[in-house]
């Protein structure tokens, strides 16, 4: 079952290096006032459905990664 990043994402970029398969991809950075944010998406071609990204309650601090039903 593949996974996706929802609108709850805080664009912190913390997940990018934590995905063991490198399937969480950095999108173009966004500016919010004085802040630079890092949106991401999951590349379903790279994702192996290992489930690490949902294995802990707050693996994503915003709980923004969910299974695609």
């Amino acid at each position, binding site marked *: 079952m593949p996974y996706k990043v929802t609108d709850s994402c*805080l664009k912190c970029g913390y997940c990018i290096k934590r995905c063991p398969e490198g399937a969480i991809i950095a999108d173009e950075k966004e500016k919010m006032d004085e802040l630079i944010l890092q949106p991401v998406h999951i590349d379903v071609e790279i994702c192996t459905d290992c489930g690490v990204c949902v294995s802990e309650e*707050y693996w994503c*601090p915003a709980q923004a990664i969910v299974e695609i039903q």
Partner: protein
Amino acid sequence: MGKYDKYFVKYGINTPKVDDLRPIVARMDNSVAKGCNFYLVHWVAPGFGDILGDYEYAGHPPHIHKSAELLMHIGGDPDNPMDLNAEVEMYMGPELERHTFTESTIIYIPPNFIHSPWRPLRVDKPFLFIEINQGPEHTEKFYPQLLPKEAREKIDWSMWPDKGFD
């Protein structure tokens, strides 16, 4: 000099002091004793909240740690140990759910859980604040994007650098 003197840790006497405004009485981590987790103990006295400011969302800004954390607020009156003699404000989660309490309280913070701002709203008598981080080093990653712009602009972000996150 005894063989085991190193196990009697006195902050600032036989361990280094850190650059911190808080009245710290104890601090331990892996750099002080190999394998030791992070612990920090400081007093919170009347006026402590003044350095954090007095506006909505003032205080230690929203952040996470890699390891679980316990934030112990221990009242200083042994005749009434559950009375904190203070009121503390804490926000929890990315929703910034607001909590306040006036009793001796432990806040449990799971790994990577967003928490804070934290600040004492009033302190009538000093209480002890004990921070236990269940990892060998203190890590911290901030989430300024959760705060309204007006609050972000009032914070001196040089006081709050990310630590231990690439």
